[in-house]
């Protein structure tokens, strides 16, 4: 346990340290927004990881409904929680970036609103898992996970479908989109590092969820034997 804790802390600090160094010291300063644009190197990779986590949740939920395996339910629970954490960072860093650039903390445009709805869907998912009574809570959570995922492509496409305060896509957004090579290298590195961090959190949380499930069944067995 001590070994896992030490290596987890070291890995997390190393990934956050390297990504911060690259974003704050190596990436060039953006011409229009200045230094505050460096929030981009944490904001976008966090959004990407949240999307990946919700996709994992979607796949695990489908698999749970087909096979009813405790492992897929544990993966679904772990990925939803990690997704909410990364989505929270997106919803915190977004307004902090918006205030000096747009002059406002928040606006109800399509990208921001659909992202907030996404966050609310998966917070509801976690609350359902935590508080729903009876043996059907995992099935209900899986169904919610599948329907909730519908919002992920809507969030992604919202800046293409609607006129928004949020900027147009930086990558793959047409002729005038794209990043300078020096910015692109830092961005891609941070994207990879945050993906590793997110998947590592999912793995850790999955181990914890499985251990919790095993503990609950051990408690139930002990109660049946009249020991505990």
């Amino acid at each position: 346990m001590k070994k896992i804790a030490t290596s987890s802390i070291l890995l997390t600090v190393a990934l956050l340290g390297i990504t911060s160094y690259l974003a704050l010291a190596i990436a060039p300063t953006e011409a229009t927004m200045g230094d505050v644009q460096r929030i981009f190197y944490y904001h976008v990779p966090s959004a990407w990881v949240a999307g990946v986590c919700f996709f994992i949740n979607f796949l695990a939920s489908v698999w749970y409904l087909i096979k009813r395996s405790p492992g897929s339910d544990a993966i679904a629970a772990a990925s939803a929680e990690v997704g909410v954490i990364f989505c929270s960072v997106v919803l915190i860093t977004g307004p902090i970036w918006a205030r000096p650039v747009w002059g406002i903390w928040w606006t109800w445009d399509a990208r921001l609103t659909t992202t907030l709805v996404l966050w609310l869907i998966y917070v509801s998912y976690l609350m359902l898992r935590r508080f729903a009574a009876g043996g059907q809570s995992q099935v209900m959570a899986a169904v919610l996970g599948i329907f909730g995922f519908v919002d992920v492509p809507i969030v992604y496409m919202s800046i293409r479908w609607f006129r928004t305060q949020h900027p147009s896509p930086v990558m793959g957004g047409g002729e005038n989109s794209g990043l300078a090579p020096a910015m692109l290298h830092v961005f891609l590195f941070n994207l990879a590092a945050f993906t590793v961090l997110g998947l590592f959190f999912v793995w850790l949380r999955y181990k914890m969820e499985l251990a919790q499930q095993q503990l609950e069944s051990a408690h139930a067995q002990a109660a049946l034997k009249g020991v505990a």
Partner: protein
Amino acid sequence: MNSIAFLKAAYIITWLVYLGYLARILLGMKKVAAERAELERTTARGTASATMKRSAS
């Protein structure tokens, strides 16, 4: 407030959220391991006393 203050705030909050979440997972794992060990001790004691009762009768 200048833009550097916003930049610092965003990075500090992100670090705090991720490290805080990692701490929460690690503490949760520690708690589950402790509960598991406690249950195993209780089960072992219960099984031993049941065996003693059976052999005494």
